[in-house]
């Protein structure tokens, strides 16, 4: 199956938050009235019961004046996800079409994934002691709807302005590049795409009307060196640690006991000498 993804075009988004509600609906997540946030972003970040949000960021530029940047924020479904790297319990896997999904039965609630993720996406759901995130509607994609058309994630299905569409990544990447070029020539000189090269590729494509930092996205997201060190150097050999330790104990036993016995006199003499 080809890699399937969402293309989100910030130039078409009207921040109606239909995607946010559709996500809550499909995943049957509860809502909660929180403290006043001071802006239209009542949900300032994803949380254990909110897999996707729309951020509305006011930005004032001395030249271009005021802009209000809307951006959908959720799991980026990285090609090489840090969450998967750090998870000690094997919760994370990647589906054949590119969604990073969790097997929550295995989750131990250690929250390593949350701190390992360059986007801080997996969030701890305290009441059940689990870390959760967007599934790209893995349970919905790959079926047919009542019209016989392929199903798509709840967010993309809901979007009224086609700011969010779902399809094959290669095709959507072509569309995104065309769109960014169009926007560059039509009033958004800094328009760019996001998700093509970041972290070696994200399974979410963004068309941004400005540089990523204006949308609260890390300009050059990086997975921490500790994580890659752990992943590349320590974890592959983790399985060897117990045999290694056992082997170490065995060697130690041999050297300290057997060899000591063999050369016992000398050793004892030395010890005795020590006593003297």
């Amino acid at each position: 199956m080809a890699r399937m993804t969402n293309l989100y075009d910030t130039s078409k988004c009207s921040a109606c938050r239909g995607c946010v509600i559709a996500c809550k609906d499909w995943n049957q997540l509860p809502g909660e009235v929180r403290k006043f946030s001071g802006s239209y972003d009542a949900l300032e970040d994803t949380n254990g019961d909110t897999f996707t949000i729309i951020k509305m960021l006011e930005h004032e530029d001395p030249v271009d004046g005021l802009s209000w940047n809307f951006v959908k924020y959720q799991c980026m479904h990285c090609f090489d996800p840090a969450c998967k790297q750090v998870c000690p319990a094997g919760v994370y896997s990647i589906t054949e079409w590119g969604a990073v999904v969790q097997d929550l039965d295995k989750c131990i609630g250690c929250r390593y994934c949350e701190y390992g993720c360059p986007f801080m996406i997996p969030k701890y759901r305290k009441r059940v002691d689990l870390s959760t995130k967007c599934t790209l509607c893995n349970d919905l994609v790959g079926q047919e709807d009542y019209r016989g058309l392929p199903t798509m994630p709840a967010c993309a299905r809901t979007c009224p302005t086609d700011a969010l569409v779902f399809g094959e990544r290669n095709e959507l990447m072509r569309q995104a590049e065309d769109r960014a070029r169009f926007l560059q020539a039509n009033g958004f000189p800094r328009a760019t795409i996001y998700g093509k090269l970041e972290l070696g590729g994200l399974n979410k494509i963004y068309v941004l009307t400005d540089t990523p930092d204006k949308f609260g996205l890390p300009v050059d997201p990086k997975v921490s060196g500790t994580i890659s060190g752990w992943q590349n150097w320590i974890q592959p050999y983790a399985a060897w640690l117990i045999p290694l330790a056992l082997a170490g104990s065995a060697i130690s036993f041999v050297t300290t006991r057997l060899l000591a016995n063999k050369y016992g006199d000398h050793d004892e003499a030395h010890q005795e000498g020590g006593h003297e």
Partner: protein
Amino acid sequence: MTNHMVDLRNTDVCFLIGSNMAENHPIGIKWLLKGKETRGNTIINVDPRYTRTSKVADIYAPMRSGTDIAFMGGMINYILQNDLYHREYIQYYTNAPFLVREEYEFNDGLFNGYDGQTRIYDGSTWDYQLDGEGNPVKDMTLENPRSVFQLMKEHYSRYDIDTVCAITGTPRAKYLEVLETFCATGAPDKVGTICYAMGTTQQSKGSQNVRSYAVVQLLLGNMGRPGGGTNALRGENNVQGATDYGNLFHILPGYLGSPVSTTHPTYERYLEVQTPASGYWVNTPKFMASLLKAWWRDEDPAVSYNYIPKREGAKDYSFMNMFENMYKGEIDGLFVFGTNPMVGGPNTNKEQRALANLKWMVQSDLWFNETSEFWSYQAFDRPTAKDEYGLLTPPEIQTEVFFLPACGVYEKEGTASQTGRWVQYRWQAALPAGESDADLYIYDKLAKAVKKQYEGSTRPEDEPITRLTWDYVFTHDHTADIAQVDLEINGYYVDDPSRPVEGFPNLQADGSTACGCWVYCGMLELRNGEVHCKPKNRDNRDTSVNGLGIFANWAWSWPLNRRIVYNRCSVQPDGVTPWPGDEKRVLIQWNAEAGRWMGDDVPDFGATVAPDAPGGTNAFIMLPEGVGRLFATKGSMREGPFPEHYEPWESPTQNVLSSQQVNPMGLFWEPEKQGRPEDYPLVGTTYRVVEHWQSGALTRNQPWLSEAMPHMFVEISEQLAFERGIKNKDQIIVSTSRGEIKAYAMVTKRLRPMMINGRETHQIGMLWHFGYKGYSTGDPANRLTAHVGCPNSRIPEYKAFLCDIRRA
């Protein structure tokens, strides 16, 4: 809407004023955004604050609340001074060449015929000069100084750019950019649309605001053409249906005037007064007779006309005056269906006090809301002790309140008329929960109970009820009842009650047809002997040749499935030639061989009236003169033939265009409570956000939507926050001369101070969704608004008032 939602993709320039379309019509705006890709259209947004709509627009210009006519008057002046109007269009399709009677004059903000005592205009001299045969005199060169065109040019010459910008607070460069961009649609090959909503209408001169848009659209030749029109974006889905069916005190179903005891004492007199000499309303007797037959099938219309309650002369039965009368204790009982006035009504402090004067009240809703609980301790909880109308406790309130649980839209069945006049059928998705039921079912039970009370009565005064035709069979699952109602609305032949009338041209004045709402006539048809309901049509193929998005077989649109009204204007007066350079946006053309109009849309014109026949260019068939009115005649607009700028009832400044400060005919109930700028220096306005709907009675009971927009807030600019020492997230008190509310301050860059007539003026804005019931609660903003209204529509002035803020 004169056009429809899908048609927005055909426009070259869309002018969104008084509308936050992205938030309040989030699905509809997709057609505008599609047009951006397919046609490269330009979207202009004019609004006091930078909204989500402003974000998707190409040009945003700020404007002080309540100054639409100044803004548009400047545009009219710009069009006329720079010859940007569509000359041939206004010559043939508008009254620009008509000569106006010599008595008409305009002087310092007042038109002739004003009585300062009664504050009423006599508009009878605002009329055309007539020739010997009674036809209006025209000057096709548009040069005559008494021509509408020249009078208009003179009238708006005062609206120069600097004056307008001083009134509206729009930066001059932005204003010019808007003018240049939109007025370019006066070129014959360009079409622009104006979309507006409650920001326009909810003012003491709301109707004239809309007229100022219509005038601009006529001047630019944008009416009746794809991608054009003056488009009211309705506040909710079936509001179009509510007005079509006469849910207002001054009209009966189908926009027939409701009878007044003094002017329409008898049926004959009603027809005489209400039927004009020309235009489509000459058919009034057919529509009225059919309506009366629908209500009293076994009576002669001349008799059953007497069964309709008559209005008492000039008495005002509108929402605000109804509450005023309730406040005075003149009303005993009230039915409240599908509305929540304790959040949505203006001056809710007073209206809450008014409800306490009722003997009984019946409320029907999905949840207990602020109105059904108006008597509770919570309801009288105020952030400060200030309440001009007196606080009560529940034991002091003697009103008996009944609550009828209603079901949601997906639990009932029927049609809804959306903003583009499409009548779309909605099927029942689930049975109503618990004891709740559809409004129809509730009303049916009620009507039958009332009829039962009158059973056997022979008194003549009981005849309206005893003789009423009411033979519906309503059920929980709507197995047959909607079809019965549909048939009555569409109309049927009295001698064959199962046969639907084919269309309103077939309605008769002799009582042989019955029709509940003539504009919906033709919605049903006989197909293979079965009654087919066209609103159930769901063919999503575009039926137009040039891809204009007509979708004639998707649902059904009144009148007679016309998708764009006044579509005669989409072709030149000769009826054949498209407007130069605009060959693809022709809707109908005259076919001489067939002897009829043909094209993508149903002609909004006499189907067989040739372009060179008498009245062959009378594209505006509903008006007696057959042309669009740049000049509104005979008091059809109460406060004058041309829209004139007046300040809102509560304004931070003087009217610089004339010595008339406020609308001379505006409705003002409490003159002593007019806020003065010395006490209340800030301009306030109210609005909605996409996360909530209307009074929030539905959405604030949904956890997800409550989570998405959980608190009542007031948006204030950074400059004002600095001046008042208010920080973001602080709790503040907003006060007007009528009440005070507590809310969170949202300090934003999206609002800025404006220079109004040389003084820095602050505008603030707040949500009106909140109340004290539901998951997310907050003070109702309408505790601040006033009982002030537009004389034409009697809509309250929610959008512009004076207020002040302080830290709580």
